[in-house]
């Protein structure tokens, strides 16, 4: 499964999506009532565990997290970025 499909699968399986098959890649997860202030913590946990990322508090922004497209791009950016110097 490609990255976007994995993220979509997690979102539709773990959250209530009124119409799971058709939630648009660019649809706002907040607008759709899919995630909220505690749900977003589950999303972060999923990204960290599955893609071995370290997500900072300062990255908890809608531009990183508020749609399947944005989540995918965020993970791609994080994976591409070189690790922080020790």
């Amino acid at each position, binding site marked *: 499964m490609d990255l976007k499909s994995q993220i979509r699968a997690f979102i539709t399986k773990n959250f209530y999506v*009124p119409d799971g098959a058709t939630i648009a890649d660019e649809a*706002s997860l*907040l607008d759709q*009532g899919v995630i909220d*202030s*505690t749900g*977003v913590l589950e999303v972060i946990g999923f990204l960290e565990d599955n893609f071995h990322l370290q997500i*900072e508090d300062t990255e908890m*922004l809608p531009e990183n*997290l508020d749609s399947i497209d944005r989540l995918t791009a965020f993970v791609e950016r994080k994976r591409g970025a070189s690790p922080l110097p020790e």
Partner: protein
Amino acid sequence: MRSAFPQLQDYLALSAQRFPDKIALVCGARRVSYREIEESSNALAGGLAARGVVRGDRVIIFADNTVETVVAFWAALKANAVAVLVNPLTKADRLRYLLADCRPTALITDGHLEGVWKGVAGAPHLKALVVSGRVNPVLRAGLSTLAAFDELLAEGVSQPSPPSLNIDIDLASIVYTSGSTGDPKGVMLTHRNMLTAATSISSYLGILEDDVILNTLPLAFDYGLYQMIMAFRQGARLVLERSFTYIAEVLKVASAERITGLPGVPTIFAILAEMKSLDKFDLSSVRFVTNTAAALSLKHIDFLKQAFPCARIYSMYGLTECKRCTYLPPVDIERKPTSVGIAIPNTEVWVVDDQGNRVGPGVVGQLVVRGATVMKGYWEKPEATARKLKPGLLPGEQVLWTGDYCKMDEEGYVYFMGRMDDIIKSRGEKVAPKEVENVLVSLSGIREAAVIGVPDDLLGEAVKAFVVLEEGAQLTAKEIQNYCQSKLENFKVPKVVEFMAELPKTDTGKVKKTGLQ
């Protein structure tokens, strides 16, 4: 402004007179002045009246924290109607219940919630369905009551503003709250109730016109709504965020806007306390932090004192039925950290035993509240009202029996000991076990269910469901949770589902929850 006998909307009118060009509201990229809110709400009130909304009608506002929601609240009052704000997380079944219960003549909502309200759009009592954001052209073509928000505003500009007909004992708002039977109850609040609560809370918080208050709580949650009312009462500024979800975004805005007031619930402070990089955001402008909905833990009080060294920290307690009962003066937070404080100004509280006799210091009993903030009753629920509103000190007066176990110390400070009903407080929101159980057993395959609250660091209490499946039924916890999510607001969905062979019962066959954990 009828200064001798004000109504709630006069707060806005007066601030618009005093500070017409001041930015009253910051919401996302929008910065809106008092004049603009005053004029838009006048126009929308005119539009609502033109569509047939009259004195005493209910207007449901079912939307996120947006500029339109703020304008709609004041417009409903200016149209002599009763504003009913409904949480945007509400699902279709509950919205249908609310509409059937209070039979609004107008529903003001947003296009992105269409999936939820579509099923009630044709309700016969609705004279106006006002939609902000994207309006579905197909629905629009088929529904003569449907108007775009901006269109109704434009229509209203040419209308005369509706004359003010109410007096201050008329209803300003109905706030729905979860009852132990599972059916939501509408708490009826008059203008005088709300004016009194806003005045009392503003006075002890010391809100000033140069305050900038950050509100991330839903406006449909009464404490969220009061942030807006109190800011507008003072001519201060409200920074309105949709939620606390994207915390870095919220804190960036808080810092850029130099907020001075930070109201919250324990879950918000728990999230802040867990942050590793809170110090990356400059929050040094904060002068007061307020907590409500559930008690702050000692750990979180310490955190707040450290994170906001220049701020006064208010621990408060109350219920929708009287807005607020008590607050702990910040000077006492070291001395009595576990107390919820003293009665708010112009309110009296005391503790009674089952017979209604006052009890002495240290004795646990039910807290009673006397004052002008006490609700008018539950909308069309006289029995439920009679259980809460009982004869007071003077002939004919009514006081509120809170249904909360409390005790008082020698100095009159109140300590919250627990609830008499089994309502769960999760993330600061009330969850009736019965409502969740009803949803669970409506799922084919579930024979019985029992729901309790269990301690949770982040949520205060987490909703836990014990489920007995029917013979041969195969359901996973996730399937059950997904089903609940389609019927209930997110915070009511069981976080944990435990499967049982049977539920513990009393001799009379009732589920015995004391054995469950």
